């Protein structure tokens, strides 16, 4: 039983680290703010979720705290991504090569000078 717990925790730790690594690589490689938010805001958050699952399995006494933190992170991280993207769009940060921009005609944008 103990061995099984440790093997599952190990798999979860490696998976979470891989997802965080994908997030950071995306943060380095992708061209503009909006596409970077896709990599960092989601993928690295799921890395955190897998680490928390590993903690909950390794030490079952504190499992509730870990599950609460998972709920909290999953609830709050989209709000953070949205607030950064909305602020960047309103401040006028350009999109890298957009195929299509339905919002352009709807919203007054600032200039890129002051960011």
């Amino acid at each position, binding site marked *: 039983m103990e061995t099984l717990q440790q093997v599952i925790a190990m798999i979860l730790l490696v998976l979470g680290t891989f997802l965080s690594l994908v997030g950071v690589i995306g943060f380095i490689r992708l061209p503009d703010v909006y596409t970077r*938010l896709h*990599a960092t805001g989601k993928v690295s958050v799921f890395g955190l979720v897998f680490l928390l699952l590993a903690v909950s399995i390794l030490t079952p006494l504190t499992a*509730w*705290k870990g599950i609460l933190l998972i709920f909290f992170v*999953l609830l709050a991280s989209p709000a953070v991504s949205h607030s950064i993207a*909305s602020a960047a769009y309103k401040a006028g940060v350009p999109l890298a*090569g957009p195929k299509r921009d339905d*919002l352009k005609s709807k919203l007054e944008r600032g200039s890129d000078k002051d960011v």
Partner: protein
Amino acid sequence: MFYLSSIIALFIVYLMLTANITLPNLVLGLLVATGITLLMPKDAPMLFRIDRLPRFLWTGMQYAFVVFKDVVLGGIATARLVLDPKLPLKSGIIAIPTGSKSELGTAISAHAITLSPGELVIEMDSDGIMYTHCLDVESTAVAADEAQAKRHKLLSSLFD
């Protein structure tokens, strides 16, 4: 009724944080939950209705499963795109109508869209149209309306 549902939710959170079930701790948790509830505005939207709790839990689980499937599929697609040496980006902003009347339903479907990797709600106007930035415009534009219709069906049975 609003007070009761809010107190129950906050009490459960308090018990998960402290994780001891002695009588003084239970009373203290109940007092803290009541105090926080009294600080909330009176016209806040109700989280769930006590009299329909079993159906709420069942539909909530179905909704969580739908969102989970979106998240896993989108996560795999985003990870493949990031690790691709050629970086085939086709990013852009598309408009997705919510189709939902209540504010809480609109907010929760925007949350689900932003949670799934590859889609990110930038702005929302008063008609309930979500302007969504996505990594792959063509495939998302095809799939988005159908996924939103599925979410809207579950959410409207939750909150209306």
